C-alpha cells in the first residue's frame, strides 16, 4: 500500500546521500559550457548582468528557500556593496578584485549588524524589520555625499585584475565575472548541502524542536543571514564593476522586491530556480525595453501567467514533474 510513497522518497533521499547528485553535476557542467560560449552569442554586458542577478537571487534563495527567512531588504546589501566597490575602485583606485572584495565584506558587515537586530523576529515581522533597515540604508544613500545622490557613482574604472590583466574589454571582464559568480553559486550549493545546511532545514521546519536538540537557533539564523548578505554583496559589487556605475536603483526597495520575484518565478528552495528566474526577468527587462509603454503590461502578464501556470516556480514545477530536487 505504501509502495508508491516509498519509491518516490527512496529515490530522492538516495540521491541526497551521495554528495552532489549526477543530475546536478550534469546541469552545472552544461551550464558552464553554455556560459563559456555565451559572450560570443549575446552581448557580454547583458550576459554579465544576468549572472550578477543570478548570484544575487541564489544568495537570496539561501535565506528564503533554505533558511525559511524572508528578507525584504536585500537591496541594502546588494546596493551597499555596489556603492562601496564603486567607491573603492573610483576614489581609492583599488584593483577590481580588491574593490569587489571591499564591497562584499562591507555587505557582510552590514548584514551582521542588521541581522543581529532582525533575527529574533519571526515571519513577516522579520521581513518588515529587514525592509525598515533597508529603507534607512536607502535614505542614507540618498543623503550621504559619497554616493552621489540621484546620479550615483558614475564612470567607475574597470581597472586591471590583480593589477595585471586589463578588464577594459567586455569579454575579459566577462570571464572574470563568470569565474566569480560560478564559484559563488557552487559555494552556495555547498552551503545548502553541508551539515550546516541540514541543521538549517531542521530549524526551518520545527524551531522549538531544534532548540530542544541543543541548537542555538538564533546563531544559525544569523549565520545564514550574514552568508546570504555577503553573497548578495558580492553580486552587487560585481555589478558595479560591470556597469561602471552604482546608483540608487540598487538600494531601492523595488530591488529587494525584484529579487523576491526572481526567486519565486524560478522556484524558491530549488538550486536552479533563482538562476532561471533571474535570467528570465533580466532578459525580459532587456528585450522588452523596446516595447515602449507596453513593457509593464507585458511584464505583469508574464508574472501572472507564470504564477498561474508554474505555481511553485518554473524549476519547482519541473522538479515535481521529474520527481527530483533541482
Amino acid at each position: 500500500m505504501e509502495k508508491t510513497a516509498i519509491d518516490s522518497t527512496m529515490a530522492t533521499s538516495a540521491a541526497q546521500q551521495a554528495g552532489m547528485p549526477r543530475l546536478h553535476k550534469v546541469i552545472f557542467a552544461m551550464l558552464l559550457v553554455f556560459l563559456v560560449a555565451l559572450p560570443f552569442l549575446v552581448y557580454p554586458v547583458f550576459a554579465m548582468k544576468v549572472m550578477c542577478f543570478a548570484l544575487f537571487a541564489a544568495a537570496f534563495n539561501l535565506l528564503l528557500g533554505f533558511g525559511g527567512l524572508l528578507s525584504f531588504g536585500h537591496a541594502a546589501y546588494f546596493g551597499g556593496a555596489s556603492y562601496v566597490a564603486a567607491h573603492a575602485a573610483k576614489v581609492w583606485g583599488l584593483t577590481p578584485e580588491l574593490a569587489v572584495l571591499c564591497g562584499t565584506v562591507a555587505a557582510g558587515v552590514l548584514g551582521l549588524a542588521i541581522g543581529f537586530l532582525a533575527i529574533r523576529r519571526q515571519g513577516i515581522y522579520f521581513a518588515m524589520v529587514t525592509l525598515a533597515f533597508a529603507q534607512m540604508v536607502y535614505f542614507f544613500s540618498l543623503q550621504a555625499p559619497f554616493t552621489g545622490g540621484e546620479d550615483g557613482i558614475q564612470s567607475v574604472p574597470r581597472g586591471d585584475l590583480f593589477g595585471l590583466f586589463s578588464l577594459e574589454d567586455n569579454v575579459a571582464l566577462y570571464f572574470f565575472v563568470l569565474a566569480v559568480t560560478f564559484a559563488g553559486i557552487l559555494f552556495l550549493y555547498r552551503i545548502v548541502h553541508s551539515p550546516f545546511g541540514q541543521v538549517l532545514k531542521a530549524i526551518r521546519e520545527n524551531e522549538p524542536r531544534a532548540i530542544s536538540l541543543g541548537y542555538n537557533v538564533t546563531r544559525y539564523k544569523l549565520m545564514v543571514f550574514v552568508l546570504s548578505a555577503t553573497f548578495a554583496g558580492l553580486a552587487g559589487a560585481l555589478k558595479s564593476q560591470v556597469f561602471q556605475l552604482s546608483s540608487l536603483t540598487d538600494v531601492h526597495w523595488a530591488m529587494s522586491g525584484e529579487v523576491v520575484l526572481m526567486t519565486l518565478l524560478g522556484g524558491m528552495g530549488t538550486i536552479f530556480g533563482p538562476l532561471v528566474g533571474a535570467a528570465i526577468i533580466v532578459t525580459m527587462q532587456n528585450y522588452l525595453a523596446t516595447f515602449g509603454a507596453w513593457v509593464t503590461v507585458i511584464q505583469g502578464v508574464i508574472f501572472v501567467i507564470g504564477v498561474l501556470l508554474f505555481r511553485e516556480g518554473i524549476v519547482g514545477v519541473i522538479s515535481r514533474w521529474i520527481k527530483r530536487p533541482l
Partner: protein
Amino acid sequence: QDINVKLGVLNDRSGTYADLSGEGSAVATRMAVEDFGAAEKGMNVEVISADHQNKPDVGSNIARQWYDVDGVNAIVDVPTSSVALAVADITADANGVLLDSGAGSTSLTREQCQPTTVHWTYDTAALANGTGGAVTNAGGKKWFFLTADYAFGHSLEENTMAVVKDNGGEVVGNVRHPFPSQDFSSFLLQAQGSGADVIGLANAGGDTVNAIKQASEFGITQAGQSLAALLMFVTDVHSLGAETAQGLNLTEAFYWDQNDATRAWSARFEEQMGAKPTMVHAGAYSATMAYLAAVEELGSAEDGRAIVAKMREMDIDDPLFGKVTVRGDGRAIHDMYLFEVKKPDESEGEWDLYNQISTISGEDAFLPMLEECDFSKK
C-alpha cells in the same frame, strides 16, 4: 553612396516623464527624419526606441548595447539627469552622439561635459533665469522654495536662488520634500507661514501638479501668495486644467501655438499622439534635424566627435526653435519664453493654455560656457 544612420530614442516610457517625453519623442524624431527628406537625400535612417525607466543602470546598459551591438549612431532625448549623465559618458567612449532634449541638469555641459554631447532644449539654469528672473522683477521679492529632494531639485533650487538674489530678491525659506510626494499641504502651510510673496516649486511632474492643485485648495493663491512652477510642461498644465493652473508663470523653450510653423508641426504631431507636443518633443525633433544636416555634410554618421563639431559650426534656423547655435560645450543656445497660464474664460480649447509674456534671449537664459568645456578649441 548611401549613408546609414541609426538613431536610438532613449527615454522614460512608463514613469513620471512618459507623457512629456516617451513615445512622443520617438514620433517627433521620426517626423524629423521624414521632414529632413533623408530618403531622398540617400540616407537610410532608422529610428529605434527604448525605455530607461529613469534608472541609470538600465539606461547605460541599453546605451552600451546600442553602440556596441546594434550600431546606433546617436541617442536622442534621455530625460532624467542621472541617466543622461551616464549615457553621456558612454556616448563619449563609443564616439556616438547624445542629442539630449529631456534632461535638465546643467552638468551635462559643465562638470561632466563631453565632446559628443549636445544639450538641446532647456536646463535648470535657463528655467531659473526665465521664471525666477521674471517673477522677481515683477515684484515677487520674497521667495520660499518647495524643493524635490534629489539632484535635479537641488540644482533647480540653487540656480533659482542665485537668480532671485541677483535681481534683488531674497529667499525666506525652503523645504525639501521627498520625491515623489502625494501630499504637499504641510509644506504649503509652512510656505504660507513664511510670509513669502512667491512659492517656488523646484520639482517636476506629478509633484508640481499636486502642489499646485493643493495650493489652490488651501486658498494659498487667493490669500495673495503666488506660485512659480520652475519646471512645468504643457502636459502638466493640461492635466491640472486652466481652472486650477491659471495665472502661473512658467518658462518653456517651445509652445505649440507660437507661430504658423509650430502650429502646423504640432497639428501633425497631435494626429499621431493624440496630444499637443511638449518642448521635449519639439527638442527631439529639432536636434535630430540639426544632427542629420551635419551628418549629410560630413557624408558619414560614424564619427560622433566630428558630427558634433560640425553642428557647432552650423547656423541653424529651426522651424520650431528659430535661430539656434550649438556652443563649444554642446549647449544649444536659443530663445526661451516666459508664459502665463490663461484664465479658463480666455482659453478657447483644452490645449489653449498659455499667454506669452516675454522672450528671454539665449545669451541671458543659459549659463556662460566654462573654459575647460569649450571643445571647439580643442
